[in-house]
């Protein structure tokens, strides 16, 4: 069985100097900012507020709802199922379609008050090794309990969408090791609806259940 090396990541946030005051400007920005910016705005909340599930899962939805007061549009943007996408460009396109539809149907667009503009950010990821290595499922379970939530985040979220791997790192490794069902059950999780600690618990319980089924 191939070893699983746990990595972790640290993020550097960049300011793009671009702002949006209304939906039209938001759309223009979403169309042209780098994909790292779309990724940042759809994943920032997960990392910064790790101890509760945020009401608005992405910055676009938060701003549209809170600063423009457009609750229906905000909810539509919030409901975009990120799990469905394995490419940021497709995710970007999903936002573009919703915003274009809204603009077509809305004769007059409202603007936010000054100082509440949407500010486009982006991020760079620095990947670091950790001391944790698993050679079998028992060790994998043990490591899952000890790694930081940043490491968990890296292997589950970054791997798939940012590093464009076919699946999250855990499922890829488990599948290669022959644990097909376990790989599938981790793959099937809607990871965006958990807090990171909640997600850790869920994966641990799946691995635990799998191991006990053989005892």
């Amino acid at each position, binding site marked *: 069985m191939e070893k699983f090396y746990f990595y*972790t990541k*640290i993020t*550097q*946030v*960049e*300011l*793009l*100097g*671009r702002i949006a005051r209304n939906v039209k400007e938001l759309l223009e920005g979403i169309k042209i900012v*780098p994909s*790292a910016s779309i990724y940042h705005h759809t994943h920032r909340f997960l990392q*910064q*507020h*790790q*101890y*509760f599930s*945020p009401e608005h899962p992405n910055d676009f939805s938060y701003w549209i709802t809170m600063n423009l007061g457009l609750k229906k549009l905000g909810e539509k943007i919030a409901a975009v199922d990120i799990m469905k996408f394995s490419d940021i460009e497709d995710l970007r396109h999903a936002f573009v379609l919703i915003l274009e539809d809204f603009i077509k149907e809305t004769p007059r667009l409202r603007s936010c008050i000054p*100082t509440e503009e949407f*500010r486009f*950010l982006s*991020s*760079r*990821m*620095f*990947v*670091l*090794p*950790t001391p944790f290595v698993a050679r079998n499922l028992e060790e994998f379970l043990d490591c899952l309990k000890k790694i*930081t939530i940043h490491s968990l985040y890296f292997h589950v979220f970054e791997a798939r969408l*940012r*590093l464009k791997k076919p699946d999250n790192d855990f499922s890829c490794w488990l599948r290669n090791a022959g644990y097909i069902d376990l790989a599938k059950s981790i793959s099937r999780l809607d990871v965006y609806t958990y807090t990171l600690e909640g997600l850790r618990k869920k994966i641990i319980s799946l691995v635990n259940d799998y191991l006990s089924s053989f005892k």
Partner: protein
Amino acid sequence: MKSKENIGSIHKTIDAYRPIVGDEAIDELHIIAKKLKGKSIQNINSTSFGGGVAEILSRVVPLMQDLGLEIWWDVIKADARFFEISKRIHNALHGVDISLSHQDLKYFIEINYSNTQNIKRWADIVFVHDPQPIALIKKKRKLKNKWAWRCHVDFSFPKASVWRFLKRFIEKYDVSVFSAPSFSHRLKVRQVLIWPSIDPLSDKNRELPREFIDNILERFRINKEKPIITQISRFDYLKDPFGVIRAYKLVKKYVDCQLVLAGGGAGDDPEGKKVLEKVKKEAAQDRDIFVLHLSPNSHLEINALQRASTVILQKSLREGFGLTVAEALWKEKPVIASSVGGIPLQIVHKYSGILTYTTEGTAYWIKQLIHEPEYAKWLGKRGRLHVKNNFLITRHIQDYLLLFLSLYNPGDVVYL
């Protein structure tokens, strides 16, 4: 009795932060710092004491040295005229309508250029802080090293002429750093966001013995049995002390509580003195309002007052980053603050604190939090976690290390 002299001090090495942020965070700092081995780093600013920049450098530089980095801190030499001009530049960046003559700007550049001669040792990475030494960038062409410029001030609404003047220097740097998204502008140079931070081991934030806190309350004749509402800030109109008093009076109709308004800033500031006098006058009729004008080094007193508080306010009308909010959250206190400047970055409404827009709203939430201590406690706990994850000095150091590494590692994903 625990007095200020005998509560001891903590020797600060990077490892002293392990119990607070965890081994992983410190181990990661060591891993990143190793990647900078062989690169020297030089900080340059305009003063070695007083002000936020000197305060943060005096903490960050020794800790980075402790991580094994070759890092030092230089201060430019300048005269009173230069500082008078740079003060006006500073005010213009805050949107104040001031004039700067061609001669002023010429002198500002001349002093910078003379400092390029005075500084004898240059590092691989030159990290310049704030506008005063910004024109040192002239030296880059000769040295062919990496240069970063860190803006610590609120850059949201700068005067156009001063912005144009500074922009031509900023764009010569390899990277610029701002403290909040609202401070950024369209620039040809890469812009990185690095939030300021608090030091959990500083006198202002460290844990204090209960006895010491009680002693401070006793000294100021504050009743520890009655709810205490506190705002720590300079006596400044922009911190809205009168709005705080109005909110307290609305609460006082229903809840027997006390108000503490504590801070400095009235010493050599004529406006501060005026505000302090007015606040004292406003508070004179109420024995439950404590207006405490403290000396600038009253960190332990401020710490104790925050820890003794039931609710902490930051009802500013305008704010830079507003780190007093992070300081209060770190002490697990429920905080009610205005949604201005960097405060919304520190408080997520109803999750890690309360954001308000009006005096009435502030009063409403003070009552709620006094009447619902469990919810207040819940908010405080989440606030502390948010600060732990985002606003501690160790995160600040990590961001600086990444900043330096990013000068040599382009690309969205960097494997260390």
